[in-house]
């Protein structure tokens, strides 16, 4: 929320004809009240977010191991080691690939489903609900269900493929299929979220605009999309893209449960590397360096997207 602090301060210190002392007293009381009201949130933010981030930055330049009683400053050694490490590089590339599959597919399919639901009056609530269910479900539990579906011999996916005479890959144990399959699960999970936001965005488009477009001659589906729907969905689109990208960068549950980064690091992703280094190998300093890189990417991406999209997005 944008708060106009400048004008707030002005009004606070504005000269009062009925006595400066009283005005000052009132201003003080207001400031105190503001502090009290914002206080709990600020404390929580500090304790749960800012201080841990600071701690991560500090640990990243040390050789601390989880549980160790001593640590020493090592400078950027962790980072140097990191970027020389083929596992980390693989993990970085995999994560970027995963995001590049998940974001366009989630946004595109979410929009498509939202448009389909919005265009037909029948069973809207039903379609909305079934597409939103995966988002509500616990991903860890759903991952196990997916594992059963994708089982190389008794899974329904391969049994169906086999009955059609098609090849039956071992989806989660094959270097070539594992990342796309994880991406499909990610898309399946995030689709409902994108769809619900797009539905809300579609509802907010004034019907008059479609009428005007129809009278003006833009009545074909693609013309309507280009003239009215997509531009008017700009702000929602920006939000969905950013949130989906951030969630995709954070992919962890499915990897941890289904593949543990395998086979041969083909599904190793940043958060999984971070987890393994920090909590399995207990190399906390090294893990913190991975975290710093991860944070850097996420923040940079957010800023970049906000900047690019903000310029092309119309806010009415």
């Amino acid at each position: 929320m944008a708060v106009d602090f400048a004008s707030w301060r002005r009004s606070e210190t504005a000269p009062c004809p009925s006595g400066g002392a009283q005005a000052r007293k009132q201003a003080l009381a207001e400031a105190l009240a503001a502090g009290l009201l914002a206080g709990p949130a600020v404390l929580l933010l500090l304790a749960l977010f800012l201080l841990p981030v600071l701690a991560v930055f500090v640990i990243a330049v040390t050789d601390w191991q989880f549980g160790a009683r001593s640590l020493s400053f090592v400078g950027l050694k962790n980072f140097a080691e990191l970027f020389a490490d083929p596992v980390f590089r693989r993990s970085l590339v995999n994560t970027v690939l995963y995001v590049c599959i998940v974001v366009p597919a989630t946004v595109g399919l979410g929009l498509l489903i939202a448009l389909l639901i919005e265009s037909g009056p029948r069973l809207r609530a039903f379609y909305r609900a079934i597409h939103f269910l995966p988002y509500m479900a616990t991903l860890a539990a759903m991952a196990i269900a997916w594992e059963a579906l994708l089982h190389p011999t008794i899974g329904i996916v391969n049994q169906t493929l086999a009955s059609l005479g098609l090849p039956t890959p071992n989806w989660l144990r094959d270097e070539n299929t594992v990342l796309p399959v994880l991406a499909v699960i990610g898309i399946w999970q995030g689709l409902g979220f994108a769809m619900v936001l797009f539905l809300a965005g579609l509802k907010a488009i004034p019907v008059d605009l479609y009428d005007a477009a129809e009278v003006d001659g833009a009545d074909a589906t693609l013309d309507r999309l280009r003239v009215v729907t997509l531009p008017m969905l700009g702000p929602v689109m920006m939000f969905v893209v950013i949130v989906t990208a951030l969630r995709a960068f954070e992919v962890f549950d499915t990897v941890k449960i289904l593949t543990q980064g395998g086979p041969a690091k083909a599904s190793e992703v940043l958060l999984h590397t971070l987890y393994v280094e920090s909590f399995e190998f207990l190399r906390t300093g090294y893990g913190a360096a991975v975290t710093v890189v991860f944070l850097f990417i996420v923040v940079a991406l957010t800023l970049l997207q906000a900047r690019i999209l903000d310029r092309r997005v119309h806010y009415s």
Partner: protein
Amino acid sequence: MTFGVVLRDITKSFGPTPVLRGVSLDIAEGEFLTLLGPSGCGKSTLLRIVAGLETQDVGTVSIGGRPVDALRPKQRDVAMVFQSYALYPHMTVGQNLALPLRMRRLSKLQRLPLLGRVLPGTRALAGTIARDVAQTAAALEIDHLLERKPGQLSGGQRQRVAVGRAMVRQPEVFLMDEPLSNLDAKLRVAMRAEIKDLHRRLGVTFVYVTHDQAEAMTLSDRVAVMLEGELLQVARPRDIYADPEDRRVAEFVGSPKINLIEGRVREAGAVDVAGTTFHLDTGLGRGKAVTLGLRPEAFGAAERAGPGVITGAVRLLEHLGSDLYAHVDVPGQQAPLIARLPAEDDAGPANGGTLHLRPRLDHVLLFAPDGRRLRPAQARRIMPLPLREPA
């Protein structure tokens, strides 16, 4: 006479709710016709049916002599101005104006963002489009706004852009759905004059929807009064006011509202009304109920009570500068009568005082209990009275 728009027996229901009940209307080419009625009377739906944005359940629409029922809005050669203006907020004013032309003149391929520009012919067409947009913008004096987005414009400017977008492709029929109701009162009066002027310059058919009687009266060649999905009367503005066909028309048009007084026929040529007797020919038999409609300006002051004089207590006086409206409580009447009196009359009535009013009998409108206008042979009058703005 050639007809711009012809509607035959248009019927439309939304679910179980009937919105239009068999509306037939002939609108002459080049005519300015206003659909006037309260909200929910179906006037906007009728306009949308003419535009092709809604489909009628029954009935036919022809524009320029050709049936258009099977045609989509863009094929009907109509342009529409919406109450909300419906400008594309992400496009500049120039792009807004150009869109209808781009959609008509450029092929699907030529409209593509990058490829379109290099296709043969696109550049020449884009040139003609830019020229037409510039011409329209100049005519509406919005040429300095072409680079701006609608969000940066004032209400009046947006309204002009909306009109411009309708005008730019020179349609056969202009449809306007309450185009002025989002403007403030002062601007509304100014834009009213501009729309009238626009109609004169373009000379094409205008169908204009409004609930504002002042707009309807000042702009139109003819006014079609609608109520509950029916056309009650289609006539010139002054006939709508002075010669209404139906009690509901008389009630809807005119501000302050027409006074309606219940009376009973005493004998041929005499009606008992509000404690007095009027010498009026109603054409009805003895003892029949009749409603007298009296516009506020149909009263004159009388010296004392007597036959043909209504006497009551002044409840409220409204000085409007040029006029004085007296609200008078009359025994046996639910609502007070409102009479317009000359304002300069210093010796006029006082609040709470008694006022004697003598209606001009040639100004009385008679209505049957079912709301139908009664026109006995002798009762012919025209009221050459000025229209006024609602106070």
